[in-house]
């Protein structure tokens, strides 16, 4: 979706204004710690995948998404998913009172959480699938504007780049956000600045974007 999260090339959002590295804490308040941990812990219940998680955050109203701090967006996404997936009712969320114990969930304890973090969740799939493109091929990002989740940023659509790496077969994020696990080739595609920004680009630069085969057509 062309939501508020798809920020590449937008203007007027202010200076980067970085905090000095040596002074920046990992969390800026205790509620951020808890929101972070709750999001990871609830994700470990296995009822949604990473792309459904992203879609829940980016589906907020643009005004909310852009005015929220980062972990407020995580919190909003978490609340949405808990209700959408029927894990918590909207009444329970509003009142804070549990209607009853949840049943049938595998809730990780400390040891299990540690193990899940260490194992991770690879997106690469062991599938024998011939690539549709080779390194060096010129490719165009398909021209569309889907309402559903996509990892092809708006600023690349309908633009032509060159395949610089084939990263192998990976779970296709756009389908994954709709609950489907499909393996397709993932490519790193190099875009020149004049292709993306016309005369407003930075002369000696290039942008590399990871795009899946269904995002691309031969150019």
């Amino acid at each position: 979706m062309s939501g508020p999260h798809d920020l590449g090339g937008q203007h007027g959002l202010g200076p980067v204004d970085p905090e000095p590295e040596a002074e920046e804490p990992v969390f800026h308040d205790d509620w951020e710690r808890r929101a972070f941990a709750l999001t990871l812990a609830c994700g470990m219940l296995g009822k949604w995948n990473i792309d459904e998680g992203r879609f829940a955050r980016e589906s907020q109203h643009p005004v909310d998404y852009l005015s929220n701090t980062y972990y407020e967006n995580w919190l909003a996404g978490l609340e949405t998913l808990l209700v959408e997936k029927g894990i918590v009712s909207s009444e329970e969320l509003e009142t804070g009172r549990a209607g009853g114990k949840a049943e049938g969930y595998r809730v990780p304890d400390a040891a299990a959480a540690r193990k899940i973090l260490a194992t991770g969740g690879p997106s690469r799939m062991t599938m024998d699938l011939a690539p549709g493109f080779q390194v060096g091929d010129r490719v165009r990002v398909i021209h569309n504007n889907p309402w559903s989740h996509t990892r092809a940023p708006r600023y690349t659509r309908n633009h032509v780049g060159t395949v610089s790496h084939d990263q192998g077969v990976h779970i296709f994020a756009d389908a994954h956000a709709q609950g489907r696990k499909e393996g397709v080739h993932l490519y790193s595609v190099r875009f020149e600045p004049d292709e993306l920004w016309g005369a407003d680009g930075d002369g000696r630069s290039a942008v590399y974007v990871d795009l899946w085969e269904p995002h691309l057509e031969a150019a």
Partner: protein
Amino acid sequence: MPHDGHDHTDPPDELTLRVKALESLLVEKGLVDRQALDVLIDTYEHKVGPQNGARVVARAWIDDDFMAGIKADCSAVIRDAFGFEGRQGEHIVAVENTADVHNVVVCTLCSCYPWTVLGLPPVWYKSAPYRSKVVQDPRGVLKEFGTDLDDDKEIRVWDSTSEMRYLVIPERPEGTDGWSEDELAKLVTRNSMIGVEEAKSPGDNEGDGS
């Protein structure tokens, strides 16, 4: 604009209460284990952070085979060498800065970042200004960090749209011949591994953040 100067350090009480209420609800329903929450926080607040990435970079500076290895399959090589593995580090790509090329990493769509080597991302990395600007004007953004690159150096911006995670290997600073891996690691900042700064030089002050 109300969004300017948005304070990240002073959330409204309402937010603290909202998170507490959600946590209590989930605990009461038996959906989360508080000790598991503590593990998750402790891991990323105290155990996993840019000190991991600094060890990878320092090793790469003194060991050509290691450098070649991480450029071919970074995740496998650093798992075997250091035990760095797991969430948000499954598919790391090491991109090396050279005399001709400077690399910088962003996630324009959210906040993808190589957790196993850098920990959790800083606020600016996740923020709208950085994510919107760096793909069009990388030189301008680097200047905001005090990094001034030669005009003829090519900047490569890596937009982390997939589960590939990018780790920048900064150039080894001059005047460090014969330095040990531990000494070199102290010159490798988090920001140099995102690519918005270069590694520190031997004369730079300790703790001189950005």
